[in-house]
């Protein structure tokens, strides 16, 4: 935090340090936000502070899909129009939002809260894998779609889960990996291109 040693007040430094610890916020951005909050009305600061406290106190994990929610089971898991034979497995709650925005998925979700990362010592027991297995044992699920990130850790996670699930007689698939829509074949990197070739399908 040496770079932040601008003459400031102690509470301000504390706020800057706290903001700086958040993902995607560097020292400069943390300073900007802190000075903004300093100038903001007392009411605005209060609202933000209360929202932060509330998210810790009131947000719960849905007992079924493990997503963060207001209630357990969450509204998605309670929705009678969703297809209960399909579960899409994602790493983080934000991935659920992204998939929901696409409007293309009508099944249920399961949030693992991370991915297997052997080098960091993160194994399946640190994720919500046991909870997923329990859902499969209920027998209603016919297909599990792995939507982990397309990197080494995400793929290790997806392959591991697949290993656990396939003896249970459930179909396991994963999201196709290929060219981004609106992209250009000429500018695609080698890994993406080879993957896109592997995942090709007939027209």
């Amino acid at each position, binding site marked *: 935090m040496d770079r932040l040693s601008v003459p400031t007040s102690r509470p301000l430094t504390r706020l800057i340090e706290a903001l700086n610890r958040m993902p995607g916020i560097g020292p400069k951005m943390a300073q900007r936000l802190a000075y903004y909050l300093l100038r903001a009305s007392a009411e605005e600061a209060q609202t933000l502070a209360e929202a932060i406290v509330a998210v810790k106190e009131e947000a719960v994990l849905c007992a079924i899909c493990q997503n963060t929610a207001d209630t357990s089971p969450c509204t998605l898991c309670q929705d009678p129009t969703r297809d209960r034979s399909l579960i899409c497995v994602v790493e983080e709650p934000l991935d659920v939002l992204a998939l929901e925005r696409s409007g293309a998925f009508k099944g249920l979700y399961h949030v693992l809260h991370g991915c297997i990362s*052997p*080098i960091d010592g993160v*194994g399946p027991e640190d994720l919500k894998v046991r909870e997923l297995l329990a859902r499969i044992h209920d027998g209603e699920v016919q297909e599990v779609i792995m939507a982990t990130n397309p990197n080494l850790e995400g793929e*290790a996670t997806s392959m591991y889960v*697949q290993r656990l699930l396939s003896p249970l007689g459930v179909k396991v698939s994963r999201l196709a990996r290929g060219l981004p829509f609106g992209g250009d074949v000429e500018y695609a990197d*080698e*890994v993406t291109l080879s993957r896109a070739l592997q995942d090709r399908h007939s027209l």
Partner: protein
Amino acid sequence: MLGGTRLGEADRLVTLYTQRRGKVRAVVRGALRPRSRLGGHIQPLSHCQLMLTESKGLDVVTGCQIIGPLFPMREDLVHHARGFYLMELIDCFCPEGLENPALFSLLVDTLEHLCLGEGGERVLRRFEVRLLDITGFRPELHCCLGCQQALEPVTNYLSPSAGGLLCRACAPEQSPVHSVSVNTVKVLRLLREADMETVNRLNLAPDLAAELEAALRSYIQYVLERSIKSGVWLERLRREFGPNGALGGPQNGR
């Protein structure tokens, strides 16, 4: 690439192992955007030619061309686990900014063979033995480090603290030693010299392979003063899915 962390909104700070500069940390701008060309190129354990530009005291990757095999291509859990293991070993053994061309070519060589699916665990054992040699932790394998006598062809003891083998008389009771059979010592000596073809042809009985692995693992962990987390993962996969079950190839119905 040995690993990376997110930096800001869409950038990545990656750890690279390079031929000319050893371990380097560099920024890949926009790596997390789906259309990033660089982000797709810079994959863990892929051998590529990189262009680094210095900007504000940071190395920034400005160009990348893949020249070696694409490690992440194979969909195999154990293949991935071996990759993690190599990344962790290189990261632990190499200080930043110290080049080691011998180690670099050992890594490239090892990756190529793993990608071809040849040799399996034996390729990792060869890597471990060579890694110890190259980084200055070469264990003595010919005479006892206690009494300096040539070792008898009997069970001897590998002592990480002594830096090699000890005979039965010299092996201390308490301190960490690993008993090694005559065959294990033979294989250790062979791995130090052997080329990949020889290693590929090597046929190790399961208990010999297990002893070799355990001896090298404890030696390396002593040298590093820490455990190799991805080694634990590799062992776990073998335990959960069996030595052959874990070698399964393509999945998901293809």
